[in-house]
């Protein structure tokens, strides 16, 4: 069964992803106090992978084209290739030196311009935030630039009669929201299990031609609105939190007795309930 939107073409879903250093391998440069990004293993920003999984699930159910979009250096191809291998149809990388140092304000602007250039979109999905900066600005920023309705912190998306229904995680429970298309949803980290790459997907990557590299000029992005100098965020200071020493206690001696003593202590401290 297919849902046809805006005439006789399949729905177009654009998923915005970022490539981030693998969470387990995060390293902070002791001098610059910024994240090391070169020479560390990378992955698709985990909430973005959850957003991609929602898009691919919609594609499984409806006729849909999934386009993956990212902005960054060409090393991001690795993540775009993975997205294709997982089942996305094609991808666009906005890559240009003048974008270097952009914070969330120019990023949301540049991505929204690129989305307009891709055109024909019905649904835009982003992760709720990135694991390397955790601002959560970019998704809502794109919706603002494109004047789209948005539903944030979403864990499930359904397409019903040409509208978007999404389950939103609120502080005191969950809410169901409905909106017309096109619209934008930001997706909760960990709300699903992103699928593995398929053989067919990996073959498509090997055959090539699945990533388009666009420069700012290709898209028509105003150079005066992007880059480090057009980014209002200032990182004034970064502190490393020192963990307070733990009040460790060793139980040693006879195994049976020390396990008994440990259990007694845990029960006494109400860590476990017998």
């Amino acid at each position, binding site marked *: 069964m297919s849902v046809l939107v805006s005439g006789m073409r399949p729905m177009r879903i654009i998923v915005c992803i970022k490539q981030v250093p693998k969470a387990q391998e995060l390293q902070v440069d002791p001098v610059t106090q910024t994240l090391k990004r070169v020479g560390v293993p990378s992955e698709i920003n985990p909430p973005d992978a959850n957003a991609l999984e929602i898009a691919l699930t919609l594609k499984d159910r409806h006729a849909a084209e999934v386009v993956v979009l990212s902005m960054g250096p060409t090393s991001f191809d690795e993540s775009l290739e993975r997205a294709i291998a997982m089942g996305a149809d094609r991808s666009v990388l906005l890559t240009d030196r003048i974008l270097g140092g952009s914070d969330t304000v120019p990023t949301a602007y540049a991505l929204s311009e690129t989305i307009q250039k891709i055109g024909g979109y019905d649904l835009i999905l982003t992760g709720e935030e990135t694991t390397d900066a955790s601002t959560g600005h970019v998704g809502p920023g794109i919706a603002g630039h494109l004047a789209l309705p948005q539903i944030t912190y979403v864990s499930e998306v359904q397409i019903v009669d040409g509208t978007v229904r999404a389950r939103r995680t609120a502080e005191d429970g969950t809410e169901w929201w409905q909106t017309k298309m096109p619209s934008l949803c930001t997706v909760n980290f960990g709300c699903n299990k992103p699928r593995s*790459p*398929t*053989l*067919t997907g*990996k*073959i*498509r990557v*090997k055959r090539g031609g699945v990533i388009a590299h666009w420069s700012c000029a290709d898209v028509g992005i105003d150079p005066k609105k992007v880059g480090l100098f057009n980014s209002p965020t200032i990182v004034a200071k970064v502190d490393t939190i020192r963990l307070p020493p733990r009040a460790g206690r060793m139980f040693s001696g006879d195994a049976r007795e020390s396990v008994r003593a440990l259990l007694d202590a845990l029960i006494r401290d109400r860590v476990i309930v017998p």
Partner: protein
Amino acid sequence: MERFDAIVVGAGPAGSSAALTLARKGFSTLLVERGRSPGVKGMFGGRIYSWALHDLLPDWAKDCPVERFVVRENLAFLTEDASLAISYDSPKLGQGRASSFTALRAKFDAWLAKKAQEAGAMLVTGIRVDDLWREDGRVRGVLVAPKDRVGADLVVIAEGATSILTRAAGLKRDLEPREVSVGVKETIELPVETIQERFGLGEKEGAAFVFAGQASLGLRGGGFLYTNQSSISLGLVVSSEDLSRKKIEIQEVQNRFRLHPAVQRWIRGGKVVEYSAHLVPELGAGMMPRLWGEGVLVAGDAAGFLINNGYTFRGVDLAIASGVAAAEAAEAARAAGGMSAANLAGYEKFLRARNVLTDLERFRRAPLYMKNERLFDVYPRLLMEIAERLYTVDGSGKPRLADIILEEATSADVPKLKMLLDLLQGARSM
């Protein structure tokens, strides 16, 4: 749906050789590997006989990741604390088509798979093929869970000893414990200089050892040791039937083997950096599956192409040659009009032309002979007792050599006639 002329499952020596040759012959070829990169899931003793590589890539020695060329062969019989060794030393061992070399699979397999890619094959890693796609009695491609499929006129199964697809395709029945051994291997790191000094080797020279007798605690099987550039491959192949019958863990056998003085002296001070284990098909030509079917061929370990005749362990050379033969069979079948079983039956002829089947059949009796327990327990002990008396001078008077041998042989628990038969059978099967 994606389609290829041929899909090869497994980027080990057999699979990469098949894919390389298929690509050269103009087949659009997909090579699928389960590991993150070729070789990371591969396991073998540690030595490769080079003749088949010679035929496939005449220039192989230029950039092949050779650890060391074997110039010294050793065969050692062990009892609990003594050893008797035969050593053959010759620079000829390391030269030309007859050379053999030690290697590490992660490097060697990656190199060979790259050659296949350079020839035009497409390599995809990190994907496990779950089943063959079969329809109307023929193989039409491969299936990957949950619902992915890729089509091909021919699937070459080069999946290794576990042979899950080969069995699923009905080409092979399930393995019996008596048909497989367990292989374990440790890679032990030592400095280059230490290895060269300790073994008396030159820069690219290597040594190979086969250990018999108490190496496997008297269980059927044996040990091996190969020198790499800056590590040693040390391992055992032991009958899984004996392990379960005598309720001994393979780790226990390996621990005792490692601590034997005749082994310990070589690995002393080394650091174990890798431990691996694998099934080893042991009945040679006796347990080979059907090697071809409608749209499918089987090559390498999956086909049981392994020779263990007691003094040489061969697998990688046969894997390479069988991969090439599979591609030749595919070419012949294409010329004959398609990948039907009847057209692919030429595989046998190509395997014979490359001496794969011929060698396997020649040593067909060896695995059975190697199943003779006396070989691993009684005879090594006997040899050692003879050696002990030969070389012991304590002033108590010494009989002549012939008398010692006769006396020791008579005192063993085996009738002389049986001993003679074992000897004859051994000579015939090896």
